[in-house]
């Protein structure tokens, strides 16, 4: 029998502490953006004009018909994953006679959050030949919620023993892009735009695993528990430029360029512990074994160069078709530099306390994604939309090093279906997105050889999208109509409306004639002999 020495496993497990994932983006397009854009597979570079545009192609902001406020939300997202051979990726040693008795595996996750919020305002008159637009938006292009809870127990029939293993992983990572946009339309054919995003990425993860083996009817035991937690935050500045050009009456082309973001700063903090009971390899004497580590490091993260090119046939009264090709350049996407302090304790050993520099770099690869979408207008009020897209993994393939433990790498492909409704003053989109991911996940073969082994995994995500947009004018009208009392016309924020009517102060009443003074009657003469 060969139950590996757990200290090597400990070292690997703590390797996870300092380098695994680096809170690194696995995919760039995890969340559908906008309303119409989301339900058309994300294809909007050429002619889109919803809340996805400040991120995708700021020139599209100039195609927005009026001052608008728009919000798009992934109202509900459900993800189910499957993993093969989670605890024994290389199988078990046949000499153990391992027989699985019980296995429980849960890896679903649910979330809901707004994916884009935008307010856009015209600066020019409606008939001006050159129109200027400004606005502010919040876009969340990437969200990862990963939750895995697993356990297994079995008998070691040839060793008269038992094995119990548990594992839990939680990852919560979100990328927030927020900032101002400016766009200009030059006539009816050409639009330009720019967005300056502050990109704030926050990633929180925790990991716990335990392996316990009881051998020879309990006369010997080996066990180990690993747990750690990590919080990473980073800020970067990401300028995005874009252009849209009308090639023919209903044919548009567009290009959006997000230059490599300027990494401003960030911190990554981790702490973890490995505790176990092992046998001394020389004497066979059981030894308690523990290691605690903390890491406080500078953490820089930045998105790569992104170029998206699109072509669209745009006839909103009948049929619209759009297609995008999106290129993400390779980049050193994350960088970590700090000192990991560790304390190792083992019975029979001098306690070790030391600090080690940790300098790591995460490199993402160049990828090309696509988006295709179509819209059929059934009536002026109703449109049906559909689309497809890819979201390939930007991270390198898993190589089986310690850094790959708990790393998920998926190539994702999705389809979208949606309904566009114009209800009163609101332009509403209801949509659904189905995404299928296929790839690898790195698990530690803690028992057999201590190596990290990529195992095959799949992921299926269903998302419900709800998006609404309204012009500021319509919003004001609706508010006025809804209020239970009458209000004067509200002023426009851009000052282009008529001057608001000042409240009329009632004029003072004209002076009235004083009431006639009643004439005093003469008093009758006193009666003779009466007293005054």
């Amino acid at each position, binding site marked *: 029998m060969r139950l590996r020495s757990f200290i090597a496993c400990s070292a690997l497990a703590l390797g996870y502490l300092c380098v695994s994932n680096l809170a690194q983006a696995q995919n760039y397009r995890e969340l559908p953006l906008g309303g119409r854009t989301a339900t058309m597979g994300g294809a909007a570079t050429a002619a889109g004009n919803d809340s996805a545009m400040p991120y995708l192609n700021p020139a599209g902001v100039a195609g927005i018909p009026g001052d608008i406020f728009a919000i798009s939300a992934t109202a509900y997202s459900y993800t189910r994953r499957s993993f093969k051979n989670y605890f024994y990726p290389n199988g078990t040693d046949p000499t153990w006679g391992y027989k699985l008795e019980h296995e429980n595996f849960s890896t679903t996750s649910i979330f809901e959050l707004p994916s884009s919020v935008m307010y856009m305002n015209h600066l020019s008159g409606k008939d001006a030949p050159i129109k200027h637009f400004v606005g502010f938006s919040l876009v969340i292009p990437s969200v990862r919620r990963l939750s895995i809870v697993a356990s297994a127990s079995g008998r070691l029939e040839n060793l008269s023993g038992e094995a119990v293993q548990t594992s839990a992983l939680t990852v919560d990572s979100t990328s927030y892009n927020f900032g101002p946009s400016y766009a200009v339309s030059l006539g009816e054919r050409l639009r330009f735009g720019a967005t300056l995003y502050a990109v704030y990425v926050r990633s929180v993860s925790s990991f716990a695993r335990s392996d316990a083996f009881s051998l020879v009817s309990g006369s010997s035991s080996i066990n180990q528990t690993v747990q750690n937690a990590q919080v990473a935050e980073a*800020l970067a500045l990401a300028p995005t430029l874009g252009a849209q050009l009308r090639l023919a009456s209903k044919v548009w082309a567009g290009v959006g360029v997000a230059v490599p973001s300027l990494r401003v700063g960030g911190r990554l903090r981790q702490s973890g512990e490995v505790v176990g009971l092992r046998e001394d390899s020389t004497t066979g004497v059981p030894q308690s074994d523990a290691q605690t580590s903390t890491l406080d490091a500078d953490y820089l993260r930045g998105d790569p160069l992104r170029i998206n090119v699109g072509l669209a046939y745009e006839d909103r009264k009948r049929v619209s078709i759009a297609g995008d090709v999106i290129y993400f350049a390779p980049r050193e996407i994350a960088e970590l530099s700090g000192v990991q302090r560790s304390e190792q304790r083992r019975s*029979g*050993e001098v306690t070790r*306390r*030391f600090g080690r520099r940790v300098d790591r770099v995460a490199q993402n690869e160049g990828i090309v994604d696509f988006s295709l979408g179509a819209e059929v207008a059934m009536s002026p009020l109703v449109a049906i939309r559909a689309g497809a897209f890819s979201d390939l993994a930007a991270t390198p393939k898993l190589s089986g090093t310690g850094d790959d433990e708990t790393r998920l790498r998926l190539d994702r492909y999705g389809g979208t279906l949606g309904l566009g409704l114009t209800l009163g003053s609101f332009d509403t989109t209801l949509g659904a997105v189905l995404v299928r991911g296929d790839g690898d996940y790195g698990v530690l073969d803690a028992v057999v050889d201590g190596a990290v082994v990529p195992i095959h995994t799949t992921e299926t995500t269903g998302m419900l999208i709800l998006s609404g947009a309204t012009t500021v004018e319509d919003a004001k009208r609706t508010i006025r109509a809804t209020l239970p009392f009458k209000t004067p016309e509200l002023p426009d924020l851009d000052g282009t409306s008529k001057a608001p009517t000042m409240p009329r102060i009632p004029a003072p009443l004209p002076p009235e004639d004083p009431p006639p003074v009643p004439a005093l009657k003469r008093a009758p003469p006193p009666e003779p002999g009466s007293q005054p």
Partner: protein
Amino acid sequence: MSKSALLLFALALFGCAPEQPQATDGCETLTDCQINQVCEVPTHTCIDEPENRFLGSFSCTIDDKEKLEPSQVIGHVENDRFSLPTALCSLQGEEDEIFTLLAFGYSAGDILQVRVPVKDLSDGNASIGLFLGTEGVSGASLENFDTYVGSGYSHEGTLTLSARPATGRLVTGYVDVTMYPTMNVRGVDDDAIFGIPCPRGRADCGEKLADVGGADSCFAALDTPMCSRPCDTDGDCSLGSGTCVQGRCTRPCTSSRDCVAPLTCIKGDPGESNGCY
């Protein structure tokens, strides 16, 4: 926006970073190195625990047998690892002329014993040489007095002390010694081997200690050192299938062809077999 402005923005966002922990550059003691590494003090370098070598610092009060004091000596012999976290120091000999360091494991009875003449420590450094026998000095042995097995014996090394040893004096020291393993020297675990040359010293003479019938030394009775132990009868040499010739266990022979060169077959005393010497 200037880079300094951006940094200020970042600082405002993330708050002032706490003071960074310091990395451990090199090592002063074993605690600066991770488990499975040792501190090579002269070079201040953490190195992977080496094969067939013991090294580490220790601290002890000479001849204070009441307390075990700290040791950071760790080593390997063949595939076995020995962590020896406690130490005892003493002066031995009729005139306290031999300094002895005993470094212990917490369990299993493994003891690293280093013996050097006090006179060699006049400048604080003494050489450790080939371990020839239990009575020899300037040698080191790793033996287990629970199982009476010797795992390894010194090849060469050094012992450094902070002060000339004297009874009651607290000294710190550092030992670095390479070892010859006794196990599996010839592919088999030999309990005791008598009457063969021992160029690697006592390590060539089998693993059992002299207390239970094993060889006690690599002894140069004539010209060539050979493995042997004192004996009165052949029964004293039975562990190694040896014979007692002229008071020492050796290999029985009828001619020099039965001996490992350069040993030759000599005639035993009356009543004794012939033996290799």
